[in-house]
């Protein structure tokens, strides 16, 4: 690790001031940042430790929703009684990620901001437009098994690797952010960015902005499923994942909130996929149509071509399971 200065941020305002400059990064659980600092992918001059700033609570909101503190750990969130009963897709997504040791340290804010697992990004001897703008993208013609099939650019085909945010996207949660210009909130669905010509920009946080919490809307019930397909049955990142909140009324879909992991630079939410199901009775043909819409613009890069049929089958499996559970 390169030498750096460590400062315990005395207040949220001070944490914003410190991180407004490029050379200071906030540290929460540290499970992603320290890993990348050891690899010299991240080389901050200073770390602002935000762990003692409070916002670690999980609290009911006035309208029946739930506010998850950015500094609450992934474990505290997944095992919270209300998350388990009212937002099971979120518990399931978190529990499907990493290991208990990591989830015990990982925070909700850090989880949203975790960086891609692209091998070229994490190896400083390789070209990578995300890490070193203009150096090229090693993955496009290289090892791209984990990489994106939707929303890619000719600059970067990396995926956002996390699980929690996929469930948050299906649930329509909101990210609460504090910075020198005050507070703002952004839907999780709009929080992460596509790579475009600026693959180093991964989310909408401006310099100096700190995530303080994530707000879940009032619970909607329904059958909630998080299906993660990975290369071993535990402790691996998603190749493809689906978060689904499904309801049937009189044998027809009356709710179909779907988000996908492992497919893009952000949790993928295409409202047309759920909409095409609404008012229809479940059938293989309908599930195929939903997959056609989802994958309309999908493009593989050789090694990850398998993700296109895998996504189709996973969506099919999730919708079949949800329909059986709901019936």
């Amino acid at each position: 690790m390169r030498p750096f200065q460590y400062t315990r941020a005395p207040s949220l305002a001070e944490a914003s001031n410190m991180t407004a400059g490029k050379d200071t990064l906030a540290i929460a659980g540290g499970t992603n940042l320290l890993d990348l600092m050891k690899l010299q992918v991240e080389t901050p001059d200073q770390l602002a430790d935000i762990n003692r700033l409070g916002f670690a609570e999980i609290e009911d909101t006035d309208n029946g929703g739930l506010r998850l503190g950015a500094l609450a750990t992934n474990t505290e969130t997944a095992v919270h009684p209300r998350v388990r009963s009212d937002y099971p897709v979120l518990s399931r997504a978190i529990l499907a990620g990493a290991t208990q040791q990591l989830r015990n340290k990982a925070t909700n804010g850090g989880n949203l901001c975790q960086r891609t697992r692209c091998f070229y990004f994490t190896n400083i001897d390789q070209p990578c437009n995300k890490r070193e703008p203009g150096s090229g993208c090693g993955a496009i013609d290289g090892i791209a098994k984990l990489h994106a099939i939707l929303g890619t650019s000719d600059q970067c085909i990396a995926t956002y690797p996390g699980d929690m945010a996929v469930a948050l996207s299906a649930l329509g949660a909101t990210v609460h952010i504090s910075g020198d210009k005050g507070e703002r909130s952004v839907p999780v669905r709009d929080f992460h960015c596509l790579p475009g010509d600026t693959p180093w920009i991964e989310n909408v946080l401006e310099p100096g902005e700190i995530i303080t919490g994530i707000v879940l809307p009032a619970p909607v019930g329904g059958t909630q499923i998080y299906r993660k397909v990975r290369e071993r049955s535990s402790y691996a990142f998603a190749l493809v994942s689906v978060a689904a909140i499904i309801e049937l009324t009189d044998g027809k879909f009356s709710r179909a909130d779907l988000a996908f992991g492992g497919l893009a630079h952000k949790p993928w939410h295409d409202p047309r996929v759920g909409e095409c199901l609404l008012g229809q009775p479940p059938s293989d043909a309908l599930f195929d149509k939903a997959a056609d819409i989802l994958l309309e613009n999908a493009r593989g890069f050789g090694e990850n071509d398998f993700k296109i049929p895998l996504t189709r089958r996973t969506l099919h499996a999730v919708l079949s399971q949800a329909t059986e559970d709901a019936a």
Partner: protein
Amino acid sequence: MADTITVNETAYPTPDDPRVSLLDFLRQHIGLTGTKKGCDHGQCGACTVIVNGVRINSCLTLAAMHDGDSVTTIEGLGTPDEPSALQRAFLEHDGFQCGYCTPGQICSATAMLEEIAADWPSDASENLEGRIAISGEEIRERMSGNLCRCGAYANIVAAIEEVAAGGRS
């Protein structure tokens, strides 16, 4: 007052160099070499210790961040003369070959049994709510953050199952 970390009930000043991981602090600064370094990247679990009652990877956290925290390492769980229930069960079931992953396995399992007692669900749990039934499947999922290069997994699970079933205390 200087920042301190309490390790196995003894207080130590935190290191001056902020780069020191909790793992390097334990091994190189205060001489507790029971905790092992496998990957140094959060991937193997050899460095697992219990901080404020919760198991974490000590390689992915800075010692300087732990002012006021209380750490338990393998040395704090038992001694050769008075091993903990899990330490004894690992011996009886041959829950290791080279032994390198073992301190991490035992710290991890010690905290895991508390998590099950608190009814924290896992990815392997059929229901998110209610009592957790201990099974081989639950133990394997919950221990998946502790790799064993010697592949002693079957005996590790057997050792944990015995203690989980209250076979010994």
